Protein backbone atom coordinates (compact mmCIF):
# COMPACT_ATOMS: atom_id res chain seq x y z
CA UNK A 1 0.00 0.00 0.00
CA UNK A 2 1.24 3.52 -0.46
CA UNK A 3 1.54 6.09 -3.11
CA UNK A 4 2.79 3.93 -5.95
CA UNK A 5 -0.72 2.48 -6.13
CA UNK A 6 -2.36 3.71 -9.30
CA UNK A 7 -4.01 7.09 -9.20
CA UNK A 8 -7.57 5.85 -9.55
CA UNK A 9 -7.76 4.31 -6.08
CA UNK A 10 -8.22 7.77 -4.60
CA UNK A 11 -11.03 8.64 -6.99
CA UNK A 12 -13.34 6.46 -4.89
CA UNK A 13 -12.55 8.49 -1.76
CA UNK A 14 -12.83 11.78 -3.66
CA UNK A 15 -16.22 10.77 -4.99
CA UNK A 16 -17.48 9.89 -1.53
CA UNK A 17 -16.26 13.19 -0.07
CA UNK A 18 -17.76 15.15 -2.96
CA UNK A 19 -21.13 13.45 -2.59
CA UNK A 20 -21.16 14.20 1.14
CA UNK A 21 -20.29 17.84 0.38
CA UNK A 22 -23.17 18.05 -2.08
CA UNK A 23 -25.62 16.51 0.39
CA UNK A 24 -24.61 18.97 3.11
CA UNK A 25 -24.76 21.85 0.60
CA UNK A 26 -28.30 20.98 -0.45
CA UNK A 27 -29.34 20.51 3.20
CA UNK A 28 -27.98 23.98 3.98
CA UNK A 29 -30.36 25.41 1.43
CA UNK A 30 -33.45 23.81 2.90
CA UNK A 31 -32.91 24.31 6.63
CA UNK A 32 -34.34 27.38 8.31
CA UNK A 33 -33.38 26.73 11.93
CA UNK A 34 -30.22 28.85 12.15
CA UNK A 35 -28.58 26.62 14.76
CA UNK A 36 -28.78 23.68 12.37
CA UNK A 37 -27.50 25.87 9.51
CA UNK A 38 -24.46 26.97 11.52
CA UNK A 39 -23.63 23.43 12.61
CA UNK A 40 -24.02 22.17 9.06
CA UNK A 41 -21.67 24.90 7.88
CA UNK A 42 -19.11 23.60 10.41
CA UNK A 43 -19.52 20.09 8.97
CA UNK A 44 -19.31 21.50 5.42
CA UNK A 45 -15.97 23.22 6.03
CA UNK A 46 -14.71 20.07 7.76
CA UNK A 47 -15.57 17.99 4.69
CA UNK A 48 -13.85 20.63 2.54
CA UNK A 49 -10.77 20.21 4.78
CA UNK A 50 -10.81 16.45 4.15
CA UNK A 51 -11.09 17.03 0.43
CA UNK A 52 -8.09 19.37 0.61
CA UNK A 53 -6.10 16.64 2.33
CA UNK A 54 -6.92 14.19 -0.44
CA UNK A 55 -5.90 16.88 -2.96
CA UNK A 56 -2.45 17.11 -1.35
CA UNK A 57 -3.13 20.59 0.08
CA UNK A 58 -2.17 19.79 3.68
CA UNK A 59 -1.54 23.38 4.82
CA UNK A 60 -4.85 24.58 3.40
CA UNK A 61 -6.69 21.67 5.03
CA UNK A 62 -5.10 22.63 8.33
CA UNK A 63 -6.27 26.24 8.04
CA UNK A 64 -9.73 25.27 6.81
CA UNK A 65 -10.23 22.85 9.70
CA UNK A 66 -8.96 25.32 12.31
CA UNK A 67 -10.71 28.38 10.89
CA UNK A 68 -13.74 27.04 9.09
CA UNK A 69 -14.89 24.44 11.59
CA UNK A 70 -13.62 26.19 14.73
CA UNK A 71 -13.62 29.95 14.80
CA UNK A 72 -16.36 30.74 12.28
CA UNK A 73 -18.81 28.40 14.06
CA UNK A 74 -18.22 30.22 17.35
CA UNK A 75 -18.47 33.64 15.68
CA UNK A 76 -21.70 32.77 13.91
CA UNK A 77 -23.19 31.39 17.12
CA UNK A 78 -22.18 34.60 18.91
CA UNK A 79 -23.87 36.68 16.21
CA UNK A 80 -26.94 34.44 16.12
CA UNK A 81 -27.31 34.82 19.86
CA UNK A 82 -27.76 38.56 19.40
CA UNK A 83 -30.11 38.21 16.43
CA UNK A 84 -32.79 35.64 15.64
CA UNK A 85 -32.78 31.87 15.73
CA UNK A 86 -35.22 31.12 12.93
CA UNK A 87 -34.97 32.28 9.36
CA UNK A 88 -38.23 33.04 7.62
CA UNK A 89 -38.95 30.61 4.76
CA UNK A 90 -38.54 32.24 1.36
CA UNK A 91 -41.71 32.93 -0.67
CA UNK A 92 -42.23 30.61 -3.65
CA UNK A 93 -41.85 33.30 -6.35
CA UNK A 94 -38.51 34.40 -5.00
CA UNK A 95 -37.39 30.79 -4.81
CA UNK A 96 -38.15 30.16 -8.48
CA UNK A 97 -36.59 33.44 -9.63
CA UNK A 98 -33.32 32.77 -7.83
CA UNK A 99 -33.35 29.19 -9.10
CA UNK A 100 -33.59 30.57 -12.63
CA UNK A 101 -30.69 32.97 -12.11
CA UNK A 102 -28.59 30.25 -10.52
CA UNK A 103 -29.43 27.82 -13.31
CA UNK A 104 -28.34 30.24 -16.02
CA UNK A 105 -25.08 31.10 -14.26
CA UNK A 106 -24.44 27.42 -13.67
CA UNK A 107 -24.94 26.60 -17.32
CA UNK A 108 -22.51 29.35 -18.37
CA UNK A 109 -19.86 28.14 -15.91
CA UNK A 110 -20.47 24.54 -16.89
CA UNK A 111 -19.85 25.47 -20.52
CA UNK A 112 -16.67 27.26 -19.48
CA UNK A 113 -15.15 24.15 -17.95
CA UNK A 114 -14.95 22.37 -21.33
CA UNK A 115 -11.54 23.78 -22.18
CA UNK A 116 -10.07 23.57 -18.69
CA UNK A 117 -7.22 21.07 -18.26
CA UNK A 118 -7.99 17.58 -17.03
CA UNK A 119 -7.88 17.03 -13.29
CA UNK A 120 -4.35 16.15 -12.17
CA UNK A 121 -2.77 17.03 -15.50
CA UNK A 122 0.93 17.66 -14.75
CA UNK A 123 1.71 19.98 -17.65
CA UNK A 124 -1.33 22.18 -17.39
CA UNK A 125 -0.39 25.87 -17.58
CA UNK A 126 -0.94 26.32 -13.85
CA UNK A 127 1.42 23.55 -12.85
CA UNK A 128 4.24 24.00 -15.29
CA UNK A 129 5.84 27.43 -14.92
CA UNK A 130 5.91 29.47 -11.74
CA UNK A 131 4.91 26.71 -9.35
CA UNK A 132 7.63 24.41 -10.61
CA UNK A 133 10.25 27.15 -10.46
CA UNK A 134 9.40 27.74 -6.79
CA UNK A 135 10.07 24.08 -6.08
CA UNK A 136 13.58 24.31 -7.53
CA UNK A 137 14.45 27.69 -6.01
CA UNK A 138 13.26 26.86 -2.50
CA UNK A 139 15.99 24.26 -2.07
CA UNK A 140 18.78 26.66 -2.86
CA UNK A 141 17.44 30.03 -1.79
CA UNK A 142 15.27 29.42 1.25
CA UNK A 143 16.18 25.94 2.41
CA UNK A 144 12.85 25.29 4.16
CA UNK A 145 11.37 21.83 3.52
CA UNK A 146 7.76 23.06 3.50
CA UNK A 147 7.64 24.90 0.17
CA UNK A 148 4.26 26.46 0.99
CA UNK A 149 5.69 28.16 4.08
CA UNK A 150 8.76 29.18 2.10
CA UNK A 151 6.62 30.90 -0.54
CA UNK A 152 4.22 32.36 2.02
CA UNK A 153 6.87 33.76 4.34
CA UNK A 154 9.85 34.40 2.14
CA UNK A 155 9.06 34.88 -1.54
CA UNK A 156 5.68 36.54 -0.96
CA UNK A 157 6.50 38.08 2.42
CA UNK A 158 5.23 41.47 1.30
CA UNK A 159 1.90 39.95 0.26
CA UNK A 160 1.60 38.16 3.62
CA UNK A 161 2.40 41.46 5.32
CA UNK A 162 -0.45 43.08 3.42
CA UNK A 163 -2.71 40.20 4.38
CA UNK A 164 -1.84 40.54 8.10
CA UNK A 165 -2.76 44.23 7.82
CA UNK A 166 -6.11 43.11 6.33
CA UNK A 167 -6.70 40.92 9.40
CA UNK A 168 -5.79 43.86 11.63
CA UNK A 169 -8.22 46.11 9.77
CA UNK A 170 -10.99 43.54 10.18
CA UNK A 171 -10.25 43.46 13.91
CA UNK A 172 -10.40 47.26 14.07
CA UNK A 173 -13.63 47.23 12.10
CA UNK A 174 -15.32 44.85 14.50
CA UNK A 175 -13.94 46.81 17.45
CA UNK A 176 -15.46 50.01 16.06
CA UNK A 177 -18.80 48.34 15.31
CA UNK A 178 -19.21 46.27 18.45
CA UNK A 179 -16.72 47.77 20.89
CA UNK A 180 -14.59 45.32 22.79
CA UNK A 181 -16.97 44.50 25.58
CA UNK A 182 -16.09 47.45 27.80
CA UNK A 183 -19.62 48.77 27.27
CA UNK A 184 -20.90 45.87 29.33
CA UNK A 185 -18.78 46.37 32.35
CA UNK A 186 -19.22 50.15 32.45
CA UNK A 187 -22.98 50.22 33.01
CA UNK A 188 -23.20 46.66 34.23
CA UNK A 189 -25.92 45.79 31.75
CA UNK A 190 -25.22 45.04 28.11
CA UNK A 191 -27.13 47.34 25.72
CA UNK A 192 -29.46 44.41 25.07
CA UNK A 193 -31.97 46.02 22.77
CA UNK A 194 -35.67 45.33 23.23
CA UNK A 195 -36.55 41.77 22.28
CA UNK A 196 -38.75 39.08 23.77
CA UNK A 197 -37.10 39.06 27.17
CA UNK A 198 -36.88 42.76 27.86
CA UNK A 199 -36.66 42.57 31.64
CA UNK A 200 -33.30 44.11 32.55
CA UNK A 201 -31.43 41.19 34.06
CA UNK A 202 -29.55 42.02 37.29
CA UNK A 203 -25.79 42.51 36.71
CA UNK A 204 -24.78 38.89 36.64
CA UNK A 205 -21.47 37.72 38.04
CA UNK A 206 -20.70 34.07 37.56
CA UNK A 207 -21.37 32.98 41.11
CA UNK A 208 -19.53 29.73 41.59
CA UNK A 209 -22.58 28.02 43.10
CA UNK A 210 -21.93 25.58 45.90
CA UNK A 211 -22.97 22.54 43.83
CA UNK A 212 -21.06 23.29 40.68
CA UNK A 213 -22.87 22.09 37.58
CA UNK A 214 -19.89 21.92 35.30
CA UNK A 215 -17.23 20.26 37.40
CA UNK A 216 -16.61 17.74 34.62
CA UNK A 217 -16.22 20.40 31.95
CA UNK A 218 -14.05 22.58 34.14
CA UNK A 219 -11.69 19.74 35.04
CA UNK A 220 -11.34 18.65 31.42
CA UNK A 221 -10.88 22.26 30.31
CA UNK A 222 -8.14 22.74 32.89
CA UNK A 223 -6.36 19.72 31.41
CA UNK A 224 -7.01 20.59 27.78
CA UNK A 225 -6.29 24.31 27.55
CA UNK A 226 -2.55 24.17 28.29
CA UNK A 227 -2.24 21.32 25.79
CA UNK A 228 -4.08 23.34 23.12
CA UNK A 229 -1.78 26.33 23.68
CA UNK A 230 1.24 24.02 23.55
CA UNK A 231 -0.08 22.53 20.33
CA UNK A 232 -0.49 26.04 18.92
CA UNK A 233 3.20 26.70 19.61
CA UNK A 234 4.11 23.35 18.05
CA UNK A 235 2.14 24.30 14.94
CA UNK A 236 3.86 27.68 14.93
CA UNK A 237 7.42 26.39 15.01
CA UNK A 238 6.72 23.24 13.04
CA UNK A 239 5.57 25.41 10.14
CA UNK A 240 8.88 25.04 8.38
CA UNK A 241 8.88 21.27 8.29
CA UNK A 242 5.22 20.29 8.06
CA UNK A 243 1.79 21.85 7.74
CA UNK A 244 1.45 24.82 10.04
CA UNK A 245 2.48 28.41 10.43
CA UNK A 246 1.48 31.70 11.96
CA UNK A 247 -2.14 31.80 10.84
CA UNK A 248 -3.12 28.36 12.05
CA UNK A 249 -1.24 28.80 15.33
CA UNK A 250 -2.99 32.12 15.97
CA UNK A 251 -6.40 30.61 15.36
CA UNK A 252 -5.68 27.62 17.62
CA UNK A 253 -4.45 29.91 20.40
CA UNK A 254 -7.57 32.06 20.09
CA UNK A 255 -9.84 29.01 20.23
CA UNK A 256 -8.08 27.85 23.40
CA UNK A 257 -8.93 31.15 25.10
CA UNK A 258 -12.48 30.96 23.71
CA UNK A 259 -12.88 27.50 25.23
CA UNK A 260 -11.74 28.96 28.56
CA UNK A 261 -14.27 31.77 28.33
CA UNK A 262 -17.08 29.38 27.33
CA UNK A 263 -16.61 27.27 30.42
CA UNK A 264 -15.30 29.66 33.04
CA UNK A 265 -17.24 32.70 31.93
CA UNK A 266 -16.37 36.01 30.34
CA UNK A 267 -15.32 37.81 33.54
CA UNK A 268 -12.67 35.23 34.32
CA UNK A 269 -11.33 35.55 30.78
CA UNK A 270 -11.27 39.33 30.99
CA UNK A 271 -9.29 39.04 34.18
CA UNK A 272 -6.91 36.58 32.56
CA UNK A 273 -6.45 38.47 29.29
CA UNK A 274 -7.72 42.05 29.66
CA UNK A 275 -9.20 43.77 26.62
CA UNK A 276 -6.33 46.27 26.59
CA UNK A 277 -3.76 43.52 26.07
CA UNK A 278 -5.80 42.07 23.21
CA UNK A 279 -6.04 45.48 21.54
CA UNK A 280 -2.32 46.00 21.95
CA UNK A 281 -1.62 42.52 20.56
CA UNK A 282 -3.44 43.22 17.30
CA UNK A 283 -1.03 46.06 16.55
CA UNK A 284 2.04 44.37 18.02
CA UNK A 285 2.08 41.60 15.43
CA UNK A 286 1.99 44.01 12.53
CA UNK A 287 4.73 46.02 14.26
CA UNK A 288 6.94 42.91 14.49
CA UNK A 289 6.33 42.10 10.84
CA UNK A 290 6.95 45.63 9.54
CA UNK A 291 9.80 46.15 11.97
CA UNK A 292 11.67 43.20 10.57
CA UNK A 293 11.22 44.69 7.10
CA UNK A 294 12.82 47.92 8.26
CA UNK A 295 15.63 46.00 9.91
CA UNK A 296 16.44 44.20 6.66
CA UNK A 297 16.51 47.57 4.88
CA UNK A 298 18.76 48.97 7.59
CA UNK A 299 21.12 46.03 7.09
CA UNK A 300 21.42 46.82 3.41
CA UNK A 301 18.92 44.42 1.85
CA UNK A 302 15.52 45.10 0.38
CA UNK A 303 12.28 45.21 2.43
CA UNK A 304 11.75 41.79 4.00
CA UNK A 305 14.77 40.26 2.22
CA UNK A 306 16.04 37.96 4.98
CA UNK A 307 19.36 37.04 3.37
CA UNK A 308 21.03 40.04 4.96
CA UNK A 309 19.94 39.15 8.47
CA UNK A 310 22.90 36.87 9.01
CA UNK A 311 25.56 37.95 6.57
CA UNK A 312 27.47 34.68 7.03
CA UNK A 313 24.85 32.22 5.83
CA UNK A 314 21.87 33.54 3.81
CA UNK A 315 19.92 30.29 4.34
CA UNK A 316 20.17 30.76 8.12
CA UNK A 317 18.97 34.34 7.58
CA UNK A 318 15.92 32.95 5.81
CA UNK A 319 15.11 30.62 8.70
CA UNK A 320 15.48 33.43 11.25
CA UNK A 321 13.42 35.83 9.14
CA UNK A 322 10.62 33.31 8.59
CA UNK A 323 10.43 32.46 12.29
CA UNK A 324 10.20 36.11 13.33
CA UNK A 325 7.42 37.03 10.93
CA UNK A 326 5.52 33.85 11.85
CA UNK A 327 5.57 35.11 15.46
CA UNK A 328 4.23 38.44 14.21
CA UNK A 329 1.44 36.70 12.31
CA UNK A 330 0.64 34.53 15.35
CA UNK A 331 0.30 37.55 17.66
CA UNK A 332 -1.89 39.53 15.28
CA UNK A 333 -4.21 36.70 14.19
CA UNK A 334 -4.69 35.45 17.76
CA UNK A 335 -5.42 38.92 19.17
CA UNK A 336 -7.75 39.85 16.30
CA UNK A 337 -9.78 36.67 16.72
CA UNK A 338 -9.93 37.33 20.46
CA UNK A 339 -10.91 40.96 20.07
CA UNK A 340 -13.70 39.91 17.71
CA UNK A 341 -14.91 37.33 20.25
CA UNK A 342 -14.69 39.91 23.06
CA UNK A 343 -16.75 42.25 20.89
CA UNK A 344 -19.51 39.66 20.48
CA UNK A 345 -19.30 38.38 24.04
CA UNK A 346 -19.55 41.91 25.40
CA UNK A 347 -23.01 42.43 24.03
CA UNK A 348 -25.02 39.72 25.81
CA UNK A 349 -25.41 39.15 29.54
CA UNK A 350 -23.49 36.28 31.06
CA UNK A 351 -25.49 33.05 31.45
CA UNK A 352 -25.43 31.77 35.01
CA UNK A 353 -23.59 28.48 35.36
CA UNK A 354 -26.51 26.52 36.65
CA UNK A 355 -28.66 27.45 33.68
CA UNK A 356 -26.72 25.43 31.16
Amino acid at each position, binding site marked *: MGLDVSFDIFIVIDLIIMSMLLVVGIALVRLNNLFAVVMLYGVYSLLAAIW*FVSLDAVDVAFTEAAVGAGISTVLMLGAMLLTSREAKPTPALRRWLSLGVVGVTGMALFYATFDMPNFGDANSPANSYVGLQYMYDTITEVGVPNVVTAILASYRAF*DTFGEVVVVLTAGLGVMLILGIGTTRTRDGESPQSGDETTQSAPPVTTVLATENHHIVLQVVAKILIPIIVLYALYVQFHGDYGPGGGFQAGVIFASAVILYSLIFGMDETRRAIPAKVVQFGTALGVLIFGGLGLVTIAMGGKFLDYDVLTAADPILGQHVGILIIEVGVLVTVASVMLSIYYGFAGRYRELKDQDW
Partner: protein
Amino acid sequence: MVDFIVGHFNYWVIITLMMTGLYVIISTGNLVKKLVGLGVFQTSVFQLYITLSKVAGGRPPIFDKLPGYGTETKYGAAVDPLLGVIYSNPLPHVLILTAIVVGVSTLAVGLALVVRIREAYGSIEGDDIDEAEYKIEIASS
Protein backbone atom coordinates in the same frame (compact mmCIF):
# COMPACT_ATOMS: atom_id res chain seq x y z
CA MET B 1 -15.19 10.54 -23.64
CA VAL B 2 -14.95 8.83 -20.27
CA ASP B 3 -11.53 10.35 -19.78
CA PHE B 4 -13.10 13.78 -20.44
CA ILE B 5 -15.80 13.15 -17.85
CA VAL B 6 -13.41 11.80 -15.22
CA GLY B 7 -11.04 14.67 -15.92
CA HIS B 8 -13.71 17.36 -15.52
CA PHE B 9 -15.94 15.81 -12.89
CA ASN B 10 -14.28 17.79 -10.08
CA TYR B 11 -15.06 21.09 -11.80
CA TRP B 12 -18.75 20.19 -12.20
CA VAL B 13 -19.05 19.32 -8.51
CA ILE B 14 -17.37 22.60 -7.60
CA ILE B 15 -19.72 24.54 -9.86
CA THR B 16 -22.72 22.83 -8.25
CA LEU B 17 -21.47 23.80 -4.79
CA MET B 18 -20.83 27.34 -6.02
CA MET B 19 -24.36 27.57 -7.36
CA THR B 20 -25.76 26.19 -4.09
CA GLY B 21 -23.96 29.00 -2.25
CA LEU B 22 -25.20 31.55 -4.76
CA TYR B 23 -28.76 30.24 -4.43
CA VAL B 24 -28.63 30.58 -0.65
CA ILE B 25 -27.32 34.14 -0.95
CA ILE B 26 -30.00 35.20 -3.42
CA SER B 27 -33.05 33.41 -2.11
CA THR B 28 -32.90 33.84 1.65
CA GLY B 29 -33.93 37.04 3.40
CA ASN B 30 -32.14 36.21 6.62
CA LEU B 31 -28.77 38.00 6.79
CA VAL B 32 -27.01 35.32 8.84
CA LYS B 33 -28.04 32.63 6.39
CA LYS B 34 -26.86 34.88 3.56
CA LEU B 35 -23.40 34.95 5.19
CA VAL B 36 -23.44 31.16 5.43
CA GLY B 37 -24.22 31.03 1.71
CA LEU B 38 -21.33 33.40 1.10
CA GLY B 39 -19.08 31.05 3.08
CA VAL B 40 -20.17 28.10 0.97
CA PHE B 41 -19.53 30.10 -2.21
CA GLN B 42 -16.04 31.13 -1.00
CA THR B 43 -15.08 27.61 -0.04
CA SER B 44 -16.04 26.35 -3.49
CA VAL B 45 -13.70 28.93 -5.04
CA PHE B 46 -10.91 27.66 -2.79
CA GLN B 47 -11.70 24.10 -3.91
CA LEU B 48 -11.40 25.18 -7.54
CA TYR B 49 -7.90 26.58 -6.97
CA ILE B 50 -6.75 23.50 -5.10
CA THR B 51 -8.19 21.15 -7.72
CA LEU B 52 -6.15 23.00 -10.34
CA SER B 53 -3.00 22.55 -8.27
CA LYS B 54 -3.25 18.77 -7.89
CA VAL B 55 -0.80 16.77 -10.01
CA ALA B 56 -1.72 13.14 -10.69
CA GLY B 57 0.22 10.84 -8.37
CA GLY B 58 1.84 13.88 -6.72
CA ARG B 59 2.62 14.35 -3.05
CA PRO B 60 2.13 17.40 -0.82
CA PRO B 61 4.84 19.97 -1.66
CA ILE B 62 6.94 19.22 1.45
CA PHE B 63 10.42 17.81 0.97
CA ASP B 64 10.92 14.85 3.30
CA LYS B 65 14.67 15.04 3.75
CA LEU B 66 15.82 18.47 2.75
CA PRO B 67 18.27 17.81 -0.15
CA GLY B 68 21.81 19.23 0.18
CA TYR B 69 22.05 22.87 -0.83
CA GLY B 70 22.69 23.16 -4.52
CA THR B 71 26.32 24.08 -5.20
CA GLU B 72 25.21 26.01 -8.23
CA THR B 73 24.71 29.75 -8.14
CA LYS B 74 21.46 31.06 -6.82
CA TYR B 75 19.66 30.77 -10.12
CA GLY B 76 21.29 27.83 -11.92
CA ALA B 77 20.13 25.32 -9.32
CA ALA B 78 21.43 21.80 -9.96
CA VAL B 79 18.45 19.53 -10.58
CA ASP B 80 18.38 17.45 -7.45
CA PRO B 81 17.71 13.72 -7.84
CA LEU B 82 15.09 14.09 -5.10
CA LEU B 83 13.01 16.05 -7.57
CA GLY B 84 12.33 12.79 -9.43
CA VAL B 85 9.39 12.54 -7.02
CA ILE B 86 6.24 14.27 -8.27
CA TYR B 87 4.95 17.11 -6.08
CA SER B 88 1.69 19.01 -6.38
CA ASN B 89 1.90 22.69 -7.27
CA PRO B 90 2.47 24.73 -4.05
CA LEU B 91 1.54 28.16 -5.41
CA PRO B 92 -2.31 27.92 -5.26
CA HIS B 93 -2.00 26.61 -1.70
CA VAL B 94 -0.31 29.86 -0.65
CA LEU B 95 -3.01 31.98 -2.28
CA ILE B 96 -5.78 29.98 -0.63
CA LEU B 97 -4.07 30.01 2.76
CA THR B 98 -4.28 33.79 2.96
CA ALA B 99 -7.72 33.80 1.30
CA ILE B 100 -9.20 31.62 4.06
CA VAL B 101 -8.02 33.88 6.88
CA VAL B 102 -9.14 37.01 5.03
CA GLY B 103 -12.47 35.26 4.40
CA VAL B 104 -13.00 34.69 8.11
CA SER B 105 -12.08 38.29 8.89
CA THR B 106 -14.67 39.60 6.45
CA LEU B 107 -17.19 37.11 7.83
CA ALA B 108 -16.56 38.53 11.33
CA VAL B 109 -17.08 42.11 10.13
CA GLY B 110 -20.24 41.00 8.31
CA LEU B 111 -21.61 39.36 11.45
CA ALA B 112 -20.79 42.47 13.48
CA LEU B 113 -22.80 44.55 11.00
CA VAL B 114 -25.70 42.10 11.22
CA VAL B 115 -25.72 42.49 14.99
CA ARG B 116 -25.87 46.28 14.73
CA ILE B 117 -28.59 46.07 12.05
CA ARG B 118 -30.59 43.85 14.39
CA GLU B 119 -30.21 46.39 17.21
CA ALA B 120 -31.10 49.30 14.92
CA TYR B 121 -34.03 47.80 13.00
CA GLY B 122 -35.16 45.06 15.35
CA SER B 123 -34.96 42.30 12.73
CA ILE B 124 -32.51 40.73 10.30
CA GLU B 125 -34.97 39.67 7.63
CA GLY B 126 -34.48 41.64 4.46
CA ASP B 127 -38.07 42.77 4.02
CA ASP B 128 -38.66 43.60 7.70
CA ILE B 129 -35.67 45.92 7.54
CA ASP B 130 -37.13 47.63 4.46
CA GLU B 131 -40.41 48.17 6.30
CA ALA B 132 -38.63 49.57 9.36
CA GLU B 133 -36.56 51.85 7.15
CA TYR B 134 -39.70 52.96 5.34
CA LYS B 135 -41.38 53.81 8.63
CA ILE B 136 -38.33 55.78 9.74
CA GLU B 137 -38.42 57.61 6.40
CA ILE B 138 -42.07 58.50 6.91
CA ALA B 139 -41.54 59.52 10.54
CA SER B 140 -38.61 61.77 9.78
CA SER B 141 -40.07 63.46 6.70
